[in-house]
């Protein structure tokens, strides 16, 4: 029996803690490259202001990094505490990229961050710069391995089910690593982090210019942010398109849901710019279509077919029927492990075993499921269409706006007119939350769009939970909410305090006593 209260609470807890973690990760990803660029300018030109810029933005980086570390451990532990059956079922595949992330990237990152802060007087300029660059690359490398793991949940390649161990096992690790979804997801996600880091520097610097403080400091920071942000914003949209292309191949249901495309259209399919998708009636009200666009983006051809939701549901019900055969063969093999006929049948149909588990998710025994149960299970493969439809559109809208904002900033910076238009500075300031909104929505599209699956086509999310009680999960969930809220207050307080103080208030620039490098209050 699946206890759906435990499932819902575990999902809520994972979603909250993962989204909270991802408030800090992209800023770390983006800001660290800005630090490396600023410090490179310092080492190349020898101008003290660039060192002070590195150190000032470094203080904010440090506060944020601590939050990232604090909230990251939760995610690693949570697979075990709350998703024990998931961990057992796919640990053979999913655990490896996480462990390699630790060995290859996070160790490097966590070891070198101390030297970034404490090594200014202990290392030569070039060595310190090297430390900063290693820190930057290790951070993105960390993201690579996490996204290899996540991409496998979206497109589980290079593994198959082993009936003796009742779990998925690796058959080709290179297939897992070179998963096309992982490649596009990696570049898309880190670019989004770079955009966010650039926006952070751009917005706070714009605020200084609006206040007429730290002019030299802010203009230089904005120039770095504008160039880095423009490159990143272009990359995030282009690679986001690549991401779209790979889900066409591997997650047809997610794509159809994003587009609220209920039925297969004659190619090339139209793109729905606006509409109100209605899950109950399976239609989109007030839709505004742009002909051809979706087919061209999704298939990069004029004759590629993008299947609609209703057709994908029919396919799901066929696979459920096939999965029931695998499930029945598995029960026979349990009674007699040497039953060659059952083994052959199981090997033949096990690719659809996960679809039989959709019935288990509904607390229906796959062996005795009726046609109505199968239909219900097939219908349950439709994700939350309105949420995906709108999350995607707002995210893309933000992405296009970032290109515009950074391009304009870049143009102003190259004409040395960053402080000319107050309306521009205000726009830059108020755009601060947008990359956070866009990146959170991006994860909603990626993860909510994968439902009802934890591993697409292999393991329904509901089956992945631990055998824990509702009370246990509720208690930990309340604990997380309380602790995370308290930490958010502390983090916001420190961030605002240090940003407000600024390089002038901290005595970092202009220099007061030759080396007045204080990030402490005293």
């Amino acid at each position, binding site marked *: 029996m699946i206890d759906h209260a435990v499932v819902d609470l575990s999902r809520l807890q994972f979603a909250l803690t993962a989204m909270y973690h991802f408030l800090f990760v992209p800023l770390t990803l983006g800001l660290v490259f800005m630090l490396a660029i600023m410090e490179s300018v310092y080492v190349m030109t020898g101008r003290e202001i660039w060192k002070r810029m590195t150190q000032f933005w470094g203080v904010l980086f*440090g506060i944020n990094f601590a939050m990232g570390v604090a909230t990251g451990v939760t995610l690693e532990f949570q697979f075990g505490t709350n998703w*024990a059956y998931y*961990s057992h079922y796919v*640990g053979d595949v999913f655990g490896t990229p996480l462990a390699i992330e630790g*060995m290859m990237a996070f160790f490097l990152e966590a070891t070198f961050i101390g030297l970034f802060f*404490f090594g200014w007087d202990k290392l030569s300029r070039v060595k310190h710069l090297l430390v900063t660059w290693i820190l930057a690359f290790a951070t993105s490398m960390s993201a690579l391995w996490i996204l290899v793991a996540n991409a496998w949940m979206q497109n589980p390649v290079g593994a198959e089910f082993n009936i003796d161990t009742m779990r998925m096992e690796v058959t080709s690790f290179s297939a897992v690593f070179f998963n096309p979804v992982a490649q596009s997801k990696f570049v898309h996600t880190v670019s989004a982090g770079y955009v966010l880091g650039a926006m952070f520097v751009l917005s706070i610097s714009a605020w200084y210019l609006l206040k007429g403080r730290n002019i030299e400091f802010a203009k230089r920071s904005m120039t770095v942010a504008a160039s880095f942000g423009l490159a990143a914003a272009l990359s995030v949209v282009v690679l986001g398109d690549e991401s779209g292309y790979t889900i066409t191949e591997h997650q047809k249901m997610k794509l159809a849901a994003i587009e609220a495309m209920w039925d297969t259209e004659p190619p090339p399919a139209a793109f729905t710019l606006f509409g109100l998708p209605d899950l109950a009636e399976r239609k989109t009200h007030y839709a505004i279509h742009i002909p051809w666009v979706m087919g061209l983006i999704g298939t990069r051809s004029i004759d590629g077919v993008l299947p609609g939701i209703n057709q994908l549901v029919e396919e799901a019900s066929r696979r459920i029927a096939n999965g029931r055969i695998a499930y029945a063969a598995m029960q026979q093999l349990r009674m007699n492990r040497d039953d060659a006929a059952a083994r052959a049948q199981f090997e033949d149909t096990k690719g659809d075993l996960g679809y039989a588990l959709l019935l288990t998710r509904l607390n229906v025994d796959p062996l005795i499921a009726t046609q109505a149960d199968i239909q219900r299970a097939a219908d349950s493969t439709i994700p939350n269409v309105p949420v995906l439809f709108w999350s995607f559109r707002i995210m893309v809208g933000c992405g296009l706006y970032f290109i515009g904002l950074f391009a304009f900033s870049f143009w102003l910076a190259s004409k040395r007119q960053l402080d000319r238009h107050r309306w521009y500075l205000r726009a830059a300031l108020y755009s601060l939350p947008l990359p956070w909104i866009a990146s959170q929505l991006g994860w909603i599209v990626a993860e909510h769009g994968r439902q009802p699956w934890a591993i697409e086509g292999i393991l329904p999310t509901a089956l992945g939970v631990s055998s824990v009680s509702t009370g246990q999960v509720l208690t930990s969930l309340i604990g997380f909410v309380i*602790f995370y809220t308290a930490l958010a207050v502390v983090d916001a307080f420190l961030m605002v305090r240090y940003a407000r103080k600024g390089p002038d208030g901290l005595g970092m620039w202009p220099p007061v006593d030759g080396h007045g490098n204080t990030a402490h209050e005293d």
Partner: protein
Amino acid sequence: MLDYETLRLIWWLLIGVLLAGFAVTDGFDLGIAALVRVLARDDDERRALLETIEPTWEGNQVWLILGAGAVFAAWPLLYAAAFSGFYFAMFIALLAFILRPGGFSFRNKVRDPRWRNAWDWVLTFTGVVPPLIFGIAIGNLFLGVPFRYDDNLRMTYEGGLLDLLTPFPLLVGVLALGMLLMHGCAWAAVKSEDPIAARAAGLLRWFVPTYIVLYLAAGAWLAMAVPGYAISGAAGLDAASNPLHKQVVATGSWLADGPLGHVASMMAGVAILAAVLVPLLAHRRRHVGAFLASATAVVGTIFSFGFALFPFLMPSALDPRSSLTVWDASSSKLTLGLMLIAAVVFIPLILAYTTWVYRVLRGRVSLQHIKQSHSMY
């Protein structure tokens, strides 16, 4: 290519190495955090004491994160069973790890003494709780844990947080805490100047005997009053990882009847000898030597528990057949092989650059330095 049985043995040892890496490096961070209010009396002293670990605690903590990740990848059944079975215990340990970065990174960012005092209490909590919880968890492994598997290898656990708090596990928990308090003082004696270093050396005269007495008590208890388990009728040392394919029987004692029980006792002997040296060396101001002796004691202690349990990883008290052992709880052969290649490449690299970082940061953190300059941390 190594055979499955050898790969399993290597990964059993490697997890021990990672946990030992955590206990030796992050162990002194935990010990110092726990003692921040005891070892250092005013704010300057506390800042000086904390600066002995601030640049490196994050890297040290990765031994734990990597350890957990490696258990996930190499021993997925153990990872799933231990983390979900010890649900609340893990949650409380997690709270400590969530609060910990703030204790280091946020404490010095505001001058108000109330703010700093509050973070010092947080640090104390984050230093005391993890060793206690990990010790209690390890103690419970020897008693057997109330879980069983069904045919789908879905685990159910029958027990709660309070069921973990029986005398033997509590003793192991206090032992782990005592061990890391000793280790923290040994580090403070190396990296601080007087009066902090002198205070740390003084405390060693208390912590070391406490640790030795607790350790001997736990060992005697284990030898005399805790029955062990043994595998009877295994599916084979290289069989598919399915715990239900074997039988398990009870034995008289882990130490006397376990296949590596005598190795465990030897490890314990080494650990205690090393611990005896700690205060002797510290007394002669051989602080580095005292720290290395303390590190040896920490490693010996951890390995002694691991060897005593071998070949079990997590015995089941409810259904002994469901017990997880080295021979039936691992990943596939391919995964263990791949992970081994990664470990052979990266662990030496990690040791190399970690050593370099410690070399760059060598020397004692002086109060003079703390009063003059302020890091950006």
